[in-house]
């Protein structure tokens, strides 16, 4: 009896192993079947609406030789998935993201595009300079910006009228912002702040929900600040422009006790709880998606859009970031991916995408934004001007997250009155510099061990 059971098991095992071997050997692979059409995979992030991005549908409809298979991944997961795919040598052929591209380029996750750009004489001047600057690392270009965010100064006309201000005349200088703010700030009976004119203190816990860039960097850029030396090796967070800009924030917040400010800001949330949508803050620097955002979440808000205020005698400044498409290292068909990228970056595609996407995607291509069709809507000229004067929010690419964590920590220390401006910015600068040095020295080491740029 026992003998027989053993034999049966032996046979079963053999059969099992045989089936497994057959499956492994003959499992249908993605590209095994040959067709005339080339297929490439493209990983994007799921945005608010689209599952298959507009550019993919348009590209597939426009030609027959290349078919793009799109895979939209939730943005929180995308970075991990793409990096894992590259590491396991099975990356998508093209990928789109909005995080600082240098974060990936410096880790050798992306293919330099210089060859393609030169060969096809891709018009680099058509892209807004701040966006183009982001694509560069170690003298190479790693991606093409396809869309961006342009920030402008939004103000609430109803609240302006209530405060006795002219709803057609937004503040033009930062001094006027302080003045307007005093008129627009309201309290309840208990003395709590229930409405403010402007709020310059959106820190790390509020950034994601409020969509507003750091006021201090915008003012500092107006003063001509630079936070990193030209060679990318020395952090200069503490510079006269930044000190003056931070002083403005301190002066702005001086009349309000910190606990009142904190209690007020604790009410800012997502969707219709966003500070501008909830009419808690009357003036805010917000991106170009906000007309659509307000239409969805707070259609009753009556707003105007203007250029950001300036410091007397200084030009305007703004912040931006780009949505780029790049080709991961190890892509199986970079040529086809490049064709797709070129199509996505072209003027007509950008104009079409802008309209198809409820005007959410601000073109990265200047020839598109200068088109009369685009400028039909009067407010667009404001966003274009702002973008021309914009600086990338990727300030220290090799230590991006550390930069912003330290920046907000320093702001907190200053606003809380724990440290002087010089002290807080100095501490932050030391930490960022330390992390940057570490990243640079690791980078040097890696170059001696991995030859990437000269590959192929």
């Amino acid at each position, binding site marked *: 009896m*026992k*003998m027989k059971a*053993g034999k049966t*098991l*032996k046979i079963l*095992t053999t059969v099992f192993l045989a089936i497994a071997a057959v499956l492994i050997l003959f499992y249908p692979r993605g590209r095994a079947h040959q067709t005339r059409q080339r297929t490439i995979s493209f990983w994007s992030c799921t945005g608010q609406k689209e599952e298959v991005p507009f550019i993919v549908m348009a590209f597939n409809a426009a030609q027959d030789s290349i078919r793009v298979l799109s895979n939209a991944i939730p943005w929180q997961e995308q970075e*991990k998935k793409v*990096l894992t795919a*590259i*590491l396991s040598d099975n990356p998508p052929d093209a990928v789109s993201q909005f995080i600082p591209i240098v*974060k990936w380029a410096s*880790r*050798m*996750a992306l293919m330099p595009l210089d060859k393609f750009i030169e060969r096809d004489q891709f018009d680099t001047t058509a892209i807004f300079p701040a966006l183009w600057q982001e694509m560069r690392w170690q003298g190479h270009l790693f991606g093409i910006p396809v869309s961006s965010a342009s920030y402008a100064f939004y103000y609430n006309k109803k609240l302006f009228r209530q405060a006795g201000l002219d709803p057609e005349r937004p503040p033009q200088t930062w001094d006027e912002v302080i003045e307007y703010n005093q008129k627009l700030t309201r309290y309840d009976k208990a003395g*709590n702040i*229930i409405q403010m004119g402007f709020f310059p203190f959106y*820190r*790390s*816990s509020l950034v994601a929900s409020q969509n507003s860039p750091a006021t201090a960097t915008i003012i500092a850029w107006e003063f001509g600040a630079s936070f990193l030396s030209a060679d990318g090796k020395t952090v200069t967070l503490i510079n006269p422009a930044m000190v003056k800009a931070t002083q403005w924030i301190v002066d702005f917040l001086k009349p309000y006790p910190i*606990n009142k400010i*904190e*209690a*007020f*800001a*604790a*009410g800012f*949330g997502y969707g219709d709880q966003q500070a501008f949508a909830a009419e808690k803050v009357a003036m805010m620097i917000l991106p170009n998606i906000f007309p659509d955002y307000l239409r969805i979440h707070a259609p009753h808000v009556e707003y105007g859009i203007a250029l950001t205020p300036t410091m007397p005698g200084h030009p305007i400044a703004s912040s931006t970031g780009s949505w780029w498409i790049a080709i991961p290292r190890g892509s199986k068909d970079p040529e086809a991916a490049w064709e797709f990228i070129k199509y996505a970056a072209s003027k007509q595609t950008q104009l079409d995408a802008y309209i198809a996407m409820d005007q959410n995607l601000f073109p990265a291509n200047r020839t598109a934004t200068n088109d009369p069709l685009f400028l039909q809507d009067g407010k667009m000229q404001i966003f274009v001007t702002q973008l021309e004067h914009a600086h990338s929010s990727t300030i220290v690419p090799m*230590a991006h*997250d*550390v930069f912003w*964590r330290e920046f*907000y*920590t320093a702001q*907190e*220390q200053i606003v*809380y009155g*724990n440290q002087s401006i010089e002290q807080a910015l100095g501490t932050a600068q030391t930490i960022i510099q330390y*992390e940057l040095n*570490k990243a640079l020295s*690791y980078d040097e*080491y*890696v170059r001696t*061990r*991995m030859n990437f740029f000269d590959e192929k």
Partner: protein
Amino acid sequence: MKNKITRLQRNPLQKKQAWLGYLFVAPWIIGFLVFGLYPIVMSFYYSLCQYDVLRVPQFIGLGNYKELLGHDPYFWKSIWNTLFFTVVRVPLVILGSLLLAVLVNNAVKGIRFFRTIFFIPSIVTGVVLSALWLWLLNPQYGLFNSILAVFGIPGPLWLQSPHWSKFSMVLMSLWSIGGGRMLVFLAALQGIPTSLYEVVDIDGGGWWAKFRHVTVPMISPVIFLWTVLEVIFSFQVFTEAYVMTKGGPLNSTLFYNLYLYYKAFDDFSMGYASALAWLLLVIILVVTLLQFIVGKKVVYYEGK
């Protein structure tokens, strides 16, 4: 006992069957080796390196550990925050669940209903709970401060003040005292023979004597086990701070695991983050060993 087989006495058939046995457990063994042991070993190696997942690791010896213990201000800040959270939270959680268990151990009419009611909150998961508590603790519109205002007490800035933020997170974690812990305590309570309580009655002791001299010693192994577990859980606090405060204000809720997360997944300093993880293991190990040493003197095991 007569069939006892030692390794040397196995006949070929038994060897074959042993081989089959290994085959059947192979999925687990392979899974463990590939997804368990390998990452553990590699994370130790990476903790001695500069490493960012995509590029070759650079061996730097104890560099990461030296930097952590030597001059990383956030390391000590996060240790302090986590320790504070643990020391305040664990006694409250254990005491709270125990009291709740004693309460629902009474033979009151409809006790099953109460047990269910107390258990329900613990079903809510971390992120949802955090989003909910963000509003409960809102200083201007929140439930807590609204209730305090009725009594004329100005409520604090629960999450927005560096002095209150850690305490608020402790408060929030008490939400689930009626969960699995309470059930285990309840089961332990029901295992206590009623004869022991009768003895106290005969001796003329009241409820306190029963609780102090019967209940607590009899369930002390369960209390001990949960204390050990809760300390470990508390050291790993993450979600609340990640969702509600991002470590602020003024880094007052920058807990150890949150800092580790920033290092690993924002900065991609995987080597440094691995070093942080290994230090956490050492810290938890030491604390747990200490607990066992103390536990030996305090815990009463019936079987001994």
